């Protein structure tokens, strides 16, 4: 049925019918409809149920402030709950469902809450549900949670894509109504880079529903001409369907563009939503004004609507609000609605004007009742009649529609996102944004300007001054100055003596009495009242309700709204999807991937990869037939120790250090000596934090007098680089030292095992015999008969005779292949970080499992490395503190089970033998552990009180989480080849 759609009029395209469904029922609308207008056209007034009392609710507004018409649209992974029907551009195939009702929106059992309402007053839940204690989680909370909430979200992933985009402009204009258009046109003509953003699916704001003339042209005509000229200006960009949601520091604005929310068929090449970060030299906020609802009994009955919204539906979508309309107004705008209704041939039963004076001029047919009030609106699921208090006596008027206008509140939300507090103006009877805001000017009715001409002039004028400040001296206002004809009425916060519930916050069901209760219970502060009653905390964030709540609090507290003040305006202006905020960084693309130059080499050798920060590292190389990772790792370890192995260590951080003072610099950032490190030598270095804790470790080699090559751990590569730059630039700018990260330049390959020299010698042109190239040698070498130059280091993490060979990344795979080839006869195998881990634990070498930010060198047996002679190095001073020299510090030991058949895990705690488990008895913990195929037992490194003094002591390795209590013995952390015979082999 389409009786509510007038046969002619409006800007809808009747040639383009669009099919959609509501609660499964097929309906039809036209291009140019919003979901809300289409529902109205189909006679659907009752569209939702309220939060607490489940009252039937109809469409109240035509915009972002809508508290009632929240529906769920879309299916599966595209399901969107709590969607404002008033902002949804109708498209064919749209499927909408009502919310918070059971079994149906027309018959909702939840409505019994209405009968209980006396017991469900503000904050009732703070006063009860406390007994019995166990009942909260089990009984009360589940019931409350089920009742609460509005729509239901899907658990399915979102099939669509999102993105982010930066934009830069001289002037950002927020809102494309008369004020915004005038500002944009003025700036556009002056040649400034302009962005004009409006949340609507077509620009124009109130002009789109305006019937008044501007001079001699219609508003629509004015709009068309202005848009045409703006389109012709290459320096102006118009963003429709784009809501500016936040104003951030540095004059950056966040905006949400809905790109494909108006179609059922999504083009995968484009996002459905896109976030703009707009860096604007200046911005003009022309966001308009919000019409104030009036607070009277049953003001939430379906059929009651904001006067401006009713007018918008009538003029834009040719929707008749009903057959018989009553207007309840406190200012002029009610009359504009009345005029347009009568022009459209609809009956206006009465104009109830709260102002004693009544209208300045009214030439329409409808009777006007000056100084009268609507006390109650009645009707269960739709409005049937209105009780008007006229000269003190109630009269009942039958009507199926009621338009209300309590006056206007400027929309200053964004202007207050950066801490500015709104200021109450008695003259405007409204809260205004502060006059002076850096980078932002308010224009049009957002600045309290009333009439259309005045808004045009205001927008143009404000743009002119903003542009002049930006140096566009030529800027001239696009519209002439005009006086503001509009009058401002004394606000009417609520109607006394209503019988029905008089709602202030529709969506959260906060009514007049709740606010009264808040005041009498001591929650009268506007912020406390908000939190106690939840007024303004719904999805509309009180766009309609806050101002009335403030007025009501003011009266109850007998102060002015100025003294009550507003609650804090916070982003977002309207709610924002996680998807949009996330953009393209989701799923596997949550973070970028960083790949070693040997990634594909490892892959073709069958590596199993593991995420290590952003890197993927090869953890082991299973051979066919191996069923568990342990099998592979054991084999790799044994083979490296017996023959040789090759391992990708390219992810280690590598930093080239240049400069005359490079040596002096390194001497200051490492706790051990580096000044006299000879050219051609590598040295293990410990880097401390200024608080004395070990920060990172690695080997650093001197390639020439003023050129060092530093390696860091994979995890700390970036941090160490920042740290070095801080020391060089902020602490010691007088030193001549420069850094270049060369991590990605080199493929670094560890070749370890008794046969590693033999194998490498086949590739390296120079002699690398022990004599020619002893332990800790480091030099540039020529490879494969001079085809390539690399860097060779004789360093060992595995404890074997071992080398690290660095070659230009692009040749990494070729060289790795060559090494494998050369190693074949010697039984070489690739090994991963797991085997590396086993071998380093066997040797008692520490990693960040031990270097966890709370250990100092002596904790790990490095006391001797800390230079006593250096006058200064990072971390020196703090090592002297009592707590750092105290002997109860946890320090490094080895630990192994008494019975090799038993095992333990990292993270287990250490208890003295037979001690009762308690924090007091906690002796430390296992920091690393593994199965050692060489010792045929689990082994571990542990940090234990008095550790080194306790070798040989029996302890319990306590892992209560896994009910695993292992008898073990503390020992030296070096389990394998303590004399380092193999290392020097």
């Amino acid at each position: 049925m389409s009786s509510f759609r007038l046969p002619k009029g409006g800007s809808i395209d009747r040639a383009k019918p669009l099919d959609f469904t509501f609660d499964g029922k097929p309906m039809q609308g036209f291009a140019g409809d919003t979901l809300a207008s289409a529902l109205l056209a189909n006679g659907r007034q009752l569209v939702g149920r309220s939060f607490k009392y489940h009252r039937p609710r109809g469409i109240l507004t035509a915009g972002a402030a809508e508290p009632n018409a929240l529906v769920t649209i879309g299916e599966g992974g595209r399901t969107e709950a709590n969607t404002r029907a008033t902002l949804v551009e109708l498209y064919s195939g749209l499927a909408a469902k009502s919310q918070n009702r059971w079994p149906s929106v027309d018959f909702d059992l939840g409505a019994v809450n209405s009968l209980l309402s006396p017991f469900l007053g503000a904050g009732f839940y703070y006063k009860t549900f406390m007994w019995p204690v166990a009942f909260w989680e089990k009984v009360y909370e589940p019931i409350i949670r089920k009742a609460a909430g509005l729509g239901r979200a899907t658990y399915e992933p979102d099939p669509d894509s999102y993105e982010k985009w930066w934009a830069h402009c001289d002037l950002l204009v927020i809102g494309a109504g008369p004020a915004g258009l005038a500002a944009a046109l003025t700036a556009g003509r002056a040649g400034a880079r302009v962005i004009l953003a409006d949340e609507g699916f077509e620009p124009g704001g109130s002009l789109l529903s305006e019937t008044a003339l501007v001079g001699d042209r219609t508003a629509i005509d004015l709009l068309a001409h202005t848009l045409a000229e703006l389109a012709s200006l290459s320096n102006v960009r118009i963003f429709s369907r784009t809501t500016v949601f936040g104003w951030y520091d540095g004059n950056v604005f966040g905006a949400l563009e809905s790109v494909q929310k108006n179609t059922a068929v999504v083009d995968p090449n484009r996002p459905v939503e896109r976030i703009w970060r707009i860096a604007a030299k200046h911005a003009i906020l022309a966001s308009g004004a919000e019409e104030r609802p009036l607070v009277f009994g049953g003001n939430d009955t379906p059929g009651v609507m904001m006067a401006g919204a009713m007018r918008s539906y009538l003029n834009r979508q040719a929707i008749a609000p009903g057959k018989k309309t009553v207007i309840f107004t406190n200012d002029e705008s009610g009359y504009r609605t009345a005029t347009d209704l009568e022009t459209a041939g609809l009956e206006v039963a009465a104009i109830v004007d709260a102002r004693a004076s009544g209208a300045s001029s009214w030439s329409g047919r409808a009777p006007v009742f000056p100084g009268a009030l609507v006390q109650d609106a009645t009707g269960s699921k739709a409005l049937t009649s209105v009780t008007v208090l006229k000269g003190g006596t109630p009269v009942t008027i039958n009507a199926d529609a009621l338009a209300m206008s309590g006056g206007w509140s400027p929309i200053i939300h964004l202007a207050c996102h950066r801490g500015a507090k709104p200021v109450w103006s008695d003259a405007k009877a409204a809260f205004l944004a502060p006059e002076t805001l850096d980078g932002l000017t308010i224009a049009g009715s957002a600045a309290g300007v009333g009439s259309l001409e005045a808004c045009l002039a205001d927008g143009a004028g404000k743009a002119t001054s903003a542009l002049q400040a930006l140096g566009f001296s030529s800027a001239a206002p696009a519209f002439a100055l005009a006086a503001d004809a509009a009058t401002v009425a004394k606000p009417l916060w609520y109607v006394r003596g209503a019988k029905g519930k008089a709602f202030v916050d529709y969506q959260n069901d906060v009514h007049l009495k709740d606010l009264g209760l808040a005041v009498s219970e001591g929650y009268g502060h506007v912020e406390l009242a908000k939190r106690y009653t939840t007024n303004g905390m719904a999805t509309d964030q009180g766009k309609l309700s806050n101002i009335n709540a403030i007025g009501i609090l003011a009266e109850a507290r007998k102060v002015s709204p100025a003294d009550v003040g507003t609650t804090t305006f916070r982003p977002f202006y309207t709610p924002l999807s996680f998807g949009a905020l996330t953009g393209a960084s989701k799923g596997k693309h949550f973070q970028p991937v960083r790949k070693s130059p040997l990634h594909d080499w490892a892959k073709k050798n069958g590596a199993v990869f593991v995420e290590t920060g952003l890197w993927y590292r090869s953890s082991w190389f299973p051979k066919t037939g191996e069923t568990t990772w342990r099998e592979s790792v054991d084999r790799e370890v044994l083979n490296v120790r017996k023959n040789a192995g090759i391992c990708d260590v390219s992810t280690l951080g590598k930093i080239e250090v240049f400069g005359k003072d490079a040596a002096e610099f390194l001497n200051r950032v490492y706790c051990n000596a580096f000044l006299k490190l000879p050219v051609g030598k590598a040295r293990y270095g410990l880097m401390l934090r200024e608080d004395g804790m070990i920060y990172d470790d690695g080997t650093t080699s001197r390639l020439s007098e003023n050129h060092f090559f530093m390696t860091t751990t994979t995890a700390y590569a970036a941090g160490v680089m920042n740290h070095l730059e801080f020391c060089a630039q902020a602490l010691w700018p007088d030193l001549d030292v420069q850094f270049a990260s060369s991590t990605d330049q080199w493929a670094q390959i560890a070749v370890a095992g008794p046969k590693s020299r033999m194998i490498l010698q086949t590739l390296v042109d120079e002699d690398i015999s022990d004599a020619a190239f002893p332990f800790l040698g480091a030099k540039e070498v020529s490879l494969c008969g001079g085809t390539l130059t690399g860097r060779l280091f004789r360093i060992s993490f595995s404890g074997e005779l071992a080398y690290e060979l660095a070659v230009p990344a692009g040749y990494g795979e070729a060289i790795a292949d060559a090494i494998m080839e050369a190693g074949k006869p010697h039984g070489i195998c690739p090994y991963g970080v797991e085997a590396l881990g086993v071998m380093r634990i066997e040797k008692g070498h520490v990693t960040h499992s031990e270097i966890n930010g709370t250990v100092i060198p002596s904790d790990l047996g490095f006391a001797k490395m800390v230079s006593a002679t250096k006058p200064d190095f990072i971390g020196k001073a703090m090592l002297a503190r009592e707590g750092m020299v105290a002997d109860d510090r946890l320090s490094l030991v080895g630990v192994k089970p008494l019975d090799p058949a038993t095992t333990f895990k990292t993270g287990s705690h250490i208890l003295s033998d037979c001690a009762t488990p308690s924090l007091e008895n906690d002796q430390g913990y296992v920091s690393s552990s593994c199965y050692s195929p060489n010792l045929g037992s689990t082994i571990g490194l542990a940090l234990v009180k008095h550790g080194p003094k306790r070798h040989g002591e029996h302890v319990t390795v306590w892992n209560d989480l896994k009910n695993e209590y292992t008898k073990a013995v503390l020992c030296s952390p070096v389990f394998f080849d303590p004399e380092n015979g193999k290392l020097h082999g």
Partner: protein
Amino acid sequence: MVDFALVHRPALAGAKSGSFGAPATGNRITLAALPEGHVLQVLASKGSASLEELIRQIADGNKTAVRAYGPGQWFVVGDATLSPAEIAGKAALLSGKASIAEQSHGRIRIGMSGGSVEAALAKGTAVDLDRTKFPVGRSAMTLIGHISALITRTGDESFEVVVLRGFAESLWDELIQMSLEFGVDARATV
């Protein structure tokens, strides 16, 4: 020694090539892996006076070969591969005034061009790439999404992006993603 051929493996060898996104639009984007020639990171020694002139001398003459990205820091890039000896020669020229870090394998160059190339890049970087603000030859080290890279305008409708080798493939995918709505032809092999 073993006899073997020194095969070079390009960083983007595994990256995807082809045409993606919107069907032919006027403003298609072209994405191309550039030759892994030379990338030299030049770092001025403390107290060196302006070195621009000297540095131009170690470059290959191309008008966008020298790319400043901070005080006393440049990248010098070109298509030709340089031998260690050649690089040593250039280092000698700067000796005492600046150092050279070989990054020819550590940094990967990607060419990006087309009518909407500015728009596509603006999805990644906050740098205002407007032609008047960011003319040909201008460079900026910046974040593109989550990856930092050096952007250089090489022409009215063409840019070059220099990125860490390890991130090259990830950035490549992101650049394609950013270009989908315009349509993109990607060539990962030189």
